[in-house]
């Protein structure tokens, strides 16, 4: 029998600890590989954690309600010896029996590779005395100096990359392909490369008598670091446009009831998200990311919506926002916002955004200059929407002051890749889409 350690996983970047909220299996239960084993709750998300291998739950080290750092031993599974154990978490072993030395043959499904030339002795990997890993697992974990260097540079966990080398070894092409495909920091295994000036250090400030000093919550600390990092990384410029929402206001009045009947809330934000999603397709540079000396034009349009919570800020992401109708977007915004407030978002739902909308206007802000949500290159701020006097020109060319529903939109963009002209064209098109919003699309 082999014993498999189950560790507290790292859920998303910058999360250092998790609370075991519920055990889904009892001591002595048999579990299948990938079967939910327990639930955890972190600052950002709640999630079910699958068993890393099939086996029997023989030890529970962390009780419900306990908060422990990531990589803490949570439980121990006992498996049949020889079963292919590919735990995501680290595998250590205590049993005495070591498997016989095995030759590093590629798996049968792999393309046929010649055995080494006769004059090239390839020593079969010999398992350590206390090990229960198969030779294949050991090879899988081994990596070449180059792959390790690349992994360190990009802060990638090699064990999460599918390998195509001998016995699943991660090759140069594997890791480069992996990094190319998943350059966003959202992907669990990839962290953003540190900004040129190193890790964020917040200067210390003297506290005066009577002050209250309390440590930052994790979400506060992440936000603080990310904001500084973004300021360091991107060349922020902000453009402001005034939008006449009078037509949207009419459409809202007209269709609000039917949306409510169908359980959705027709908000200005939904219209704005719709207009942005549509225009991002036409302005790909606004939907891009900067990676070294390259520009990644994102294929998907995933719009993040900043949600202010009592305990901080979170940005759930609407995937493929351009493929959703106004109804679909309204539902997604309501749903993600609600689940953000109740801490029911999965890690996946806060990752892979390509553009962000933040809505400080709900608190009355006229307009803002938001900070870009890295590694995106643009963020749209929505100012408060209210009736204002507006000079309009009548068909007979006389000017008059009318009462219109007006609001500012502002966009901070990364001038490294988005020029003022690009940003303003995008904003002008968003404005036009809003002011001429087709009734058929509601």
């Amino acid at each position, binding site marked *: 029998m082999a014993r498999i350690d189950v560790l507290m996983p790292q859920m998303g970047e910058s999360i250092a600890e998790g609370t075991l909220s519920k055990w889904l299996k009892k001591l002595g239960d048999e579990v299948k590989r990938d079967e939910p084993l327990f639930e955890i709750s972190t600052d950002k998300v709640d999630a079910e954690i699958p068993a890393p291998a099939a086996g029997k739950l023989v030890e529970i080290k962390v009780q419900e309600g306990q908060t422990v750092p990531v990589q803490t031993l949570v439980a121990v599974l006992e498996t049949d010896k020889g079963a292919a154990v590919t735990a995501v978490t680290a595998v250590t072993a205590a049993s005495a029996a070591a498997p016989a030395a095995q030759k590093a043959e*590629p798996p049968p499904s792999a*393309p046929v*590779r*010649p*055995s*080494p*030339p006769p*004059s*090239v002795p390839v020593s079969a990997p010999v398992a350590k005395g206390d090990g229960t890993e198969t030779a294949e697992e050991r090879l899988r974990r081994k990596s*070449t*100096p*180059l*792959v*390790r*260097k690349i992994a360190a540079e990009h802060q990638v966990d090699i064990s999460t990359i599918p390998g195509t*080398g*001998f016995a699943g*070894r991660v*090759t*140069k092409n594997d890791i480069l392909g992996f990094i190319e495909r998943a350059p966003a920091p959202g992907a669990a295994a990839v962290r953003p490369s540190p900004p040129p000036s190193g890790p964020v250090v917040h200067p210390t400030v003297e506290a005066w008598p009577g002050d209250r000093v309390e440590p930052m919550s994790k979400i506060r600390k992440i936000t603080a670091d990310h904001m500084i990092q973004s300021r360091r990384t991107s060349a922020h410029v902000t453009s402001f446009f005034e939008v006449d929402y009078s037509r949207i206001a009419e459409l809202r009045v007209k269709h609000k009831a039917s949306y409510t009947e169908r359980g959705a809330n027709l908000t200005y934000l939904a219209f704005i998200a719709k207009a942005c999603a549509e225009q991002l397709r036409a302005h790909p540079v606004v939907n891009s990311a900067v990676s070294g000396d390259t520009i990644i034009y994102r294929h998907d349009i995933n719009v993040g919506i900043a949600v202010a919570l009592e305990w901080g800020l979170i940005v759930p992401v609407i995937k493929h926002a351009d493929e959703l109708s106004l109804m679909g977007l309204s539902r997604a915004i309501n749903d993600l916002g609600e689940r953000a407030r109740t801490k029911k978002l999965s890690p996946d739902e806060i990752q892979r955004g390509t553009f962000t909308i933040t809505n400080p206007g709900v608190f009355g802000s006229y307009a803002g200059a938001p900070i870009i949500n890295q590694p995106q290159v643009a963020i749209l701020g929505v100012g408060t929407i209210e009736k204002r006097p507006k000079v309009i020109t009548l068909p007979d060319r006389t000017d008059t002051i009318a009462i219109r529903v007006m609001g500012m939109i502002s966009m901070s963009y990364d001038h490294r890749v988005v020029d003022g002209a690009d940003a303003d064209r995008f904003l002008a098109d968003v404005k036009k889409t809003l002011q001429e919003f087709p009734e058929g699309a509601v």
Partner: protein
Amino acid sequence: MAEITYLEAIRQGLWEEMERDERVFLLGEDVGAYGGAFKVTEGFLKRFGEARVIDTPISEAAIVGAAAGAAHMGMRPVAEMQFIDFISCAYDMLTNYVATARYRAGLATPIVVRGPCGGFVRGGPFHSQNPEAAFFHTPGLKIVAPATARDAKGLIKAAIRDDDPVLYLEHKWLYRRIKESLPEGEEILTPIGRARVAREGKDLSIVTYGAMVWKSLEAAEQLEKDGVSAEVIDLRTLLPLDDAAIVATVKKTNKLLVVHEDTRTGGLAGEIAARINEQAFEWLDGPIMRVTAHDVPIPYAPTLEDFVLPQTEDVVKAARWLAAY
């Protein structure tokens, strides 16, 4: 532009240097009246006379010793070993005397010791050797090993003009097999100490020299059909090694296969592997591999010679393995 053989290229190089500089002269066994065992120096006696084309007794030590003395007196001798295997008879002169002269006495010894090396010609143990490793280990010498007709000419001329003793290893299997059109009227000089990219590739690097350049290029052709892109580096100069070129190709492909016809133990591949380990360890995406002759003398039996010497298929096999690593 006429197409000339590797052998003709050596002959032209010698001829041009003798025409250019009257200090250059030839000495060796049968280099004069007979024109050399492989006819490299045919016609030289007639053109340059007995003072500059000297038939010597059968004593490699005497040939190298005489050349060294003449060099100290201001001459530019080119000594031929009828087969490079017999350079071992001159080992003492080369290692104890010639290689140390500059260090001991500040004496330049501008000699060239040239001779046919290598197998694939059913020559047996005394006429197939590759003696570079012994001299590679000798500070004070330079060693060149051309693979192409152009470099055969360019390196013999550069070797003659070099102020240090240069061993010029000409591969007898290439003598009449390799043909190339060389521009007439253009001075061809191959810089000593500089390798050449014989073929560009991206998946792995084959670093080699001499006849194995051609076997490696053949292997690269075959590998291409499997989708493996092999870069082939022709070292041309073995001592001093072109570290920059070897490191550059490793940084490019991240995998290194060293191929040489010389035997394995103590061969150049070991030194090259050590240098890459020191200078480019973090660029490696696989172990440094070697394809070499087996550690035995070259057999007389053709089938055994074929087995002992590295063949194209051996290079292909090792490269496939390394590419998939």
